[in-house]
């Protein structure tokens, strides 16, 4: 039989100590991804460090005009937080669209971004808003954080503490969900802050990416029509039972237009 040790630390320092220097140890957040992979033996950690008991990882606060969210804050808490709703409504909308209520009541921001599923919603918000990921070791700009399919810049033992989202002037998120899981087949966050426009795409590729052609087009003309002439190359996009790469390429454009259209 395969066994491992289960820990439930009460502080971040304790959690870090358990994880640091032990490459076979894994943190456990909401458990929605890790529990099934454990049961299928896809992951076989030596130690499981449950972060659910660490109060300092939870919470939402206003900071420098933007919002800072603790890693163990659930999607449901983000979706229903009045500060998020007031300052960055597109972020609340995105959180409200993650999975179903059962997922939103358990799944966490830190768990989602540390896993970096290519179809997760949050990466589009982090990259779209130019967020900063604060870990137990350092601060990582969102664009440097997501490095590939199920891969991040996190070092072994390094934990996400919180994420700081600067407030955009205007932003909207549009996604084409998997009808069952509500994962993003394609999700597009369109955001403008000062003179900068960002179009962050999740679900379409191995990891979140910026559609720079669209950013340039929208910077010159903030309207859905500005994207009409653009084409998205299907090469390198994801292809699965739900959508071919070609279908996803079309979705990127249509979802981007629909995101722009949501913004007055």
């Amino acid at each position, binding site marked *: *039989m*395969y066994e*491992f*040790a*289960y820990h439930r630390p009460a502080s971040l320092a304790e959690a870090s100590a358990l994880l640091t220097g032990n490459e076979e140890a894994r943190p*456990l957040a909401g458990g929605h991804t890790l529990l099934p992979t454990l*049961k299928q*033996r896809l992951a076989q950690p030596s130690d499981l460090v449950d972060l659910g008991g660490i109060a300092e990882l939870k919470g939402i606060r206003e900071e420098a005009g933007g919002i800072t969210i603790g890693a163990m804050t659930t999607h449901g808490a983000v979706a229903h937080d009045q500060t998020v709703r007031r300052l960055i409504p597109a972020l609340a909308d995105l959180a409200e669209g993650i999975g179903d209520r*059962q997922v939103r*009541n358990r799944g966490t921001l830190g768990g989602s971004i540390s896993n970096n599923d290519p179809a997760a919603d949050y990466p589009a918000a982090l990259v779209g808003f130019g967020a900063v990921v604060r870990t137990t070791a350092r601060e990582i700009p969102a664009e440097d954080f997501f490095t590939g399919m199920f891969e991040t810049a996190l070092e072994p033992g390094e934990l996400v503490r919180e994420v700081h989202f600067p407030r955009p002037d205007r932003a909207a998120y549009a996604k084409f969900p998997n009808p069952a899981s509500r994962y993003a087949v394609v999700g597009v966050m369109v955001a403008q802050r000062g003179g900068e426009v960002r179009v962050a795409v999740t679900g379409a590729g191995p990891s979140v990416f910026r559609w720079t052609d669209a950013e340039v087009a929208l910077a010159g003309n903030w309207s859905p029509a500005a994207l009409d002439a653009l084409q998205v190359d299907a090469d390198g996009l994801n292809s699965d039972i739900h959508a071919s790469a070609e279908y996803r390429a079309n979705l990127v454009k249509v979802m981007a237009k629909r995101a722009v259209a949501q913004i007055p």
Partner: protein
Amino acid sequence: MTGTIDRVGAAAAETSFLLNGRPVTIRVPPIRRLSEALREDLGLTGTKVGCNAGDCGACTVRIDGRQVCACLTPVGQVAGRHVQTVEGLAVEGPAIGGRGGHEARLTRLQASFHRHGAAQCGVCTPGMLMAATDLLERNPAPTRGEVEDALGGVLCRCTGYRKIVDAVMGAAEDGIAFLVPQAGAAVGARVAKTDGIAKLTGEERYGADAMPADALWLRAVRSPHARARFRLGDLAALRRAWPGLAAVLTAADVPVNRYGIYPTGKDQPALADGEVRYRGEAVLALVGDADTIESLTDADIPIEWEPLAPVTFEAARAGGAPVLHADLPDNVLVRGRVVKGAVDDTFAAAAAASVVEVETAFVEHAYIEPEAGWARRVGDRIEIVACTQTPYMDRDEIAHVMGLSREQVRIVPTAVGGGFGGKLDLSVQPLLAVAAWRLGRPVRWTYSRPESMAASTKRHPARIMARACAGSDGRLLGYDFAGDFNTGAYASWGPTVANRVPVHATGPYHVPHVRALTRALHTNDPPAGAFRGFGVPQAAIAHEALMDDLAAKLGMDPLEFRHLNALRAGEPTATGQVLEASCGLAACIAALREPWRAARAAAEAANRAGGAVRRGVGIGCMWYGIGNTSLSNPSSMRVGLRPDGRIVLYNGAVDIGQGSNTIMVQICADALGLPMDAFDLVTGDTDLTEDAGKTSASRQTFVSGNAAERAGRGLRAELLRRLNVGEDAALRLEAGCVHARDAGGERTLRLADLEPDARGDVLSAVGTFDPPTTALDEDGQGVPYATYGFAAQMAEIAVDLELGTVKVTRIVAAHDVGRAVNPIQVEGQIQGGIAQGLGLALMEEYVPGRTENLHDYLIPTFGDVPEIECILVEDREPLGPFGAKGIGEPALVPTAPAILNALHHATGVRITRAPATPDRVLAALRAAGVGVTP
């Protein structure tokens, strides 16, 4: 019921939390699934497990008031928190009669579910109730949209969700009083289910819910290849390495290792013998303690595989492919044939002719309850407790596989968490029987979701070529149909499909000249078997596309064209059968006429405005023969009277959620002339009930209902005789006496004065009915069914031209059911059938190895099922019990055609490959040059 089963994970540790208001402490690994701890360690089986992956939501419980999936919540994370399960919903309030006569309490929400018929099979109901309780606590008066959103994480395969939303919206209504019909007023009443309360409290026991504590566990090792030869390695070494293994069963351990639906042609092994024919076929059974069985992975099992190139449907159709079964040249399992008149000549003379090609996919039943059960040996008998649609066939099949007599086999069906045809084949039963017989200990087995999907039967994929023609007067002249059906690796119900389809190929129309030919072909795909409609839904896509196209060519309205050609009483069918009565299609179509005209006009007006969304309205019609095709399929029912005046219906017709436990009582009560609430039910058990056949072919209301009526009338006749009163006497039960009043006055029979029989009944009667049919001749001519259901449905849709998505916005469904014995349940069947038809049309496609879960295999969710208006046409069937026919399968058949026809109306693009997924629709729109108009 406690244990520290320590499989995957850390050492057991104590976790304390509040469970339904009471403090509990359990000692299990903290990583154990909460669902498992509740069910296995704490004995609360009201929380159901449908997928163990967070997809189905059946395991939804509340933690500190919030709904979560218990299957994805580690026990360690509920420390110090409050967990509420379905068993903890109603702890106060008045008690009412629950299961087996003991008391149950219901919340207003549960009572509303009962009143509205929101639970059919009931296996998703605990999850629905927990999600709804969470919602209502925060929002006591939610909108429909808010209900759909809050419950959106729980899947239901039976109801089509409409009545669930109705029940949540109606939860504020007062009271837990339910309709109790007076004697003689049960048929036609909107009465709640006789077995409904237990489904709302978590008391109901499904296949996985009543496992004996001392049972060994069983797991099958299944083939990862569609076609392969294999060699087993050193199993003795495996046994030595895993001392917890009690047995490793191979093909050699199965006494008669061939089973199958039909008396001849038994072709399916319980365990493959050196060769596998589909991915998911069982090759070994591991039996042992729970730890061992859960810990052994397939990688630990010594099997040497030699994969071979699988026979695809295309290869089987083309001919010349390797033969799967030596006795079936060219892989043709069976051919079906109905020929009447001179069809080729007709096309030459017709004013209009159309051709269509249809392609459909494997469709998975996706019942929320995976196959489950247990078996034990009792002396020289084997007893199997499992979910099934067909206890008597199971008994005979197990006797065959075990080499025992029928009398040595007892089947005890549990409540069934959805079937739809998928639980008509054996699943867990044969290997449980072999293991329990050999080891002399109870053995249990629950399929995992991926196992259920990989191993079980599917709807047949079809490739259909059909053409039809009509005269200038708009009357159909000829119909020519050729259909191939992929029946997969084993026969299962393939012959049923191949024989039923030709009879129904023309659709519910009068067509003088017909040729309908079918083949069921073996491939290395999963066995295709019985699935709600037996091939008729696939054929309906073809005939309804042709009707639309012919109407267009003749310049006729599609609805009026169908009305003109609708089969009417006195006209012959394709098999030459002349229906004398209960032929209500024209009435169904007429009932749609007004909504049809209004919706078509509104859609066309909206489309003139342009934009990304196009609206469309389509119609689909159907007919469906009730019962088996040209085969004897009798049912018997027994009703008994107890000395205390209670009435017992011995009901062998398995209720798979559709409601036969209620329908049979309604019918029997009115035939007897006594009230429903005097009845108790003994269900299923082959030792206790009569044989009421299979719950399939939409036959239970018509066939078993007739038996229930005859039993009721038989018992009534006996009572009247003993009381010496006339036929119109009114009966009354009171204090262990039957009172009768007629023109001659009142008489009384004291039941305690009579001698009870071995069952404890002082009087009883058995009723039997077998629908009158004839064999079909070599041209398929004859009387295949005693009666037919008819329907017309209209679908309104919106198509997004940029995404290729199709949103169904409204369905109007007119069904001729002969007589609605219980209108709530008829509506429930229609709504649930429509949801499955919608899935067939737009999203459902099973691909072996790729969609063996409920997030890659898509079934309709709350948001997918539109407003449904049910119109019940009651054209009485003289042969039916109180005029009733069937509704289970008819509900599904016209939906996909109506949606696909609406897609054509919206866009001008004809899609005949189902499912019409967004990428396929978008590609078809682009190919046709249909896009957004500025």
